[in-house]
């Protein structure tokens, strides 16, 4: 929805060269991206690459140790954390979960539960829900607040494939209906929601970024995932040619070890995807990036 104080052009959140350090080690560094209203940004990356850290920094749960994070004043956040275990000793129904962080009207609760298909479960204790039901309850709780920014940390974990597609469809509807910005963390390194405006791949720093739209239209992709998935998922295919060692040094594909993956280190491989792929000009950290079926998608668009 339009808001006078923050017109659509002002990003809800923007990170500039943000980094978080813990116990003398950088969890993530040099993160740059912003999220505006109606925009979906997806973070991908291997385990320990700083996705959750980045999301928490964006919403102010963690303070950046370098760089800047700017949020519009009074930003209303709806958050679905990666891990949430409710102790059995806490009697908590789905309905009571809705008002955990703030009061809501009965109608708002019902609407959110209906939107996620959880209305019939309103009286159930959260400990009795299946993985997918619990994720939908958490999503309902986050959207019931009518947030400006929805932050979803691996929202489809524990959800089967068709449930995953349904959840992505729901996230798309939420974005279209409310116009909120969405920061999504994908549990899969290569598959992101097709509606994503920007994919940011992290590996301790921003490795590469791009748009997945073209991909979801490609025949190769349809063959792989079937027609049903086409509207919801996209493959963001790339592979990293270097690994970050625990001591902070970098192991490259050719076996060499350097202090950092600085630009122009001779390990930089771009290929034909560059046109589609909005690859950072100064990234230079050596990624092999390719979008499946790029040619086919191009022809279709033409």
């Amino acid at each position: 929805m339009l808001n006078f104080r923050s017109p659509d052009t002002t990003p809800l959140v923007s990170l500039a060269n943000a980094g978080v350090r813990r116990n003398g080690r950088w969890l993530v560094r040099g993160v740059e991206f912003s999220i505006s209203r109606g925009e979906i940004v997806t973070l991908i990356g291997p385990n320990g690459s700083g996705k959750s850290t980045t999301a928490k920094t964006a919403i102010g749960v963690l303070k950046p140790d370098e760089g800047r994070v700017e949020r519009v004043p009074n930003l209303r956040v709806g958050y679905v954390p990666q891990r949430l275990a409710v102790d059995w000793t806490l009697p908590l129904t789905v309905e009571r979960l809705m008002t955990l962080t703030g009061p809501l009207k009965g109608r708002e609760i019902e609407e959110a539960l209906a939107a996620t298909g959880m209305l019939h479960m309103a009286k159930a204790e959260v400990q009795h829900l299946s993985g997918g039901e619990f994720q939908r309850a958490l999503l309902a709780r986050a959207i019931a607040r009518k947030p400006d920014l929805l932050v979803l940390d691996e929202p489809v974990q524990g959800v089967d494939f068709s449930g995953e597609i349904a959840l992505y469809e729901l996230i798309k509807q939420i974005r279209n209906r409310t116009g909120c910005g969405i920061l999504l963390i994908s549990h899969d390194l290569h598959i992101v929601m097709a509606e994503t405006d920007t994919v940011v791949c992290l590996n301790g720093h921003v490795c590469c970024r791009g748009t997945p739209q073209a991909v979801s239209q490609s025949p190769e992709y349809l063959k792989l995932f079937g027609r049903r998935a086409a509207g919801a998922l996209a493959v963001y295919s790339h592979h990293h040619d270097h690994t970050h060692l625990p001591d902070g040094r970098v192991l490259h594909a050719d076996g060499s070890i350097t202090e950092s993956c600085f630009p122009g280190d001779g390990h930089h491989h771009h290929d034909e995807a560059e046109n589609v792929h909005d690859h950072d000009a100064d990234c230079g950290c050596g990624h092999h990036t390719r979008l499946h079926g790029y040619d086919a998608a191009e022809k279709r668009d033409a």
Partner: protein
Amino acid sequence: MLDDFFIRALVAGIGIAMVAGPLGCFVIWRRMAYFGDTMAHSALLGVALSLLLELNLMISVFIVASVVSLLLLFLQKRGALSTDALLGILSHSALSIGLVIVAFMTWVRIDLVGFLFGDILAVTEADIDIIWGGGILVILSLVYLWRPLLASTVNPELAEAEGLRPERARLFFMLLMALVIAIAMKIVGILLITSLLIIPAATARRFATSPEIMAVLASLIGALAVAGGLFGSLQWDTPSGPSIVVAALALFVLSLLPLARSERASHSSHGGH
């Protein structure tokens, strides 16, 4: 038949149970039973310091329990040792330092058993004023802090992300615990405080359908345990503090028996069986 001292004991005990109920719920939801123990054990150091420095006993215990919980927060932030190891160190060091200080003070004779197990039958009217005055203060604070405390119990980062302040709520919660321990020490004693926090709350879980109902039920069950324990101690001439805990345990065991009500509850809730 009911003497004045008995009425005073009943009023004081019920006052403590009212406060211990909701606080005890948070102790078990947050899996902090050992933390409660640690604070209670540190109370003996408070007793020793109050004798050494001639301070008011309750204030001294409150200060020591608060310092121990702040120390724990600080050590947790350092992150070198796990919380239960830190609690073990703090708990037994505080208890032992207290005992050592008491041993050095050869000029005082203190009734150690009285502090460990409490003496509810020696409660004065001034004590009752403190218990109910402090109790109402604690309850009002809990009502005020309820949402941030409950949200951060479920997930601190979620609470923080959505504009509540979990760190502040946690700090206040620890101070409330310290206050309740300082007030309750005289009634049930250092070793039994945590049982009055935990057992009624655990008993209430079975019958509760929301966090709020569980907190109120825990208070009522605690009050019932106090009454039962006191009448039992009068009847069979048993020590009052432990009798209250035994009564609470009896209620807990009763709650484990299968009842029609809970079967209905598990049928109506969505079965993941």
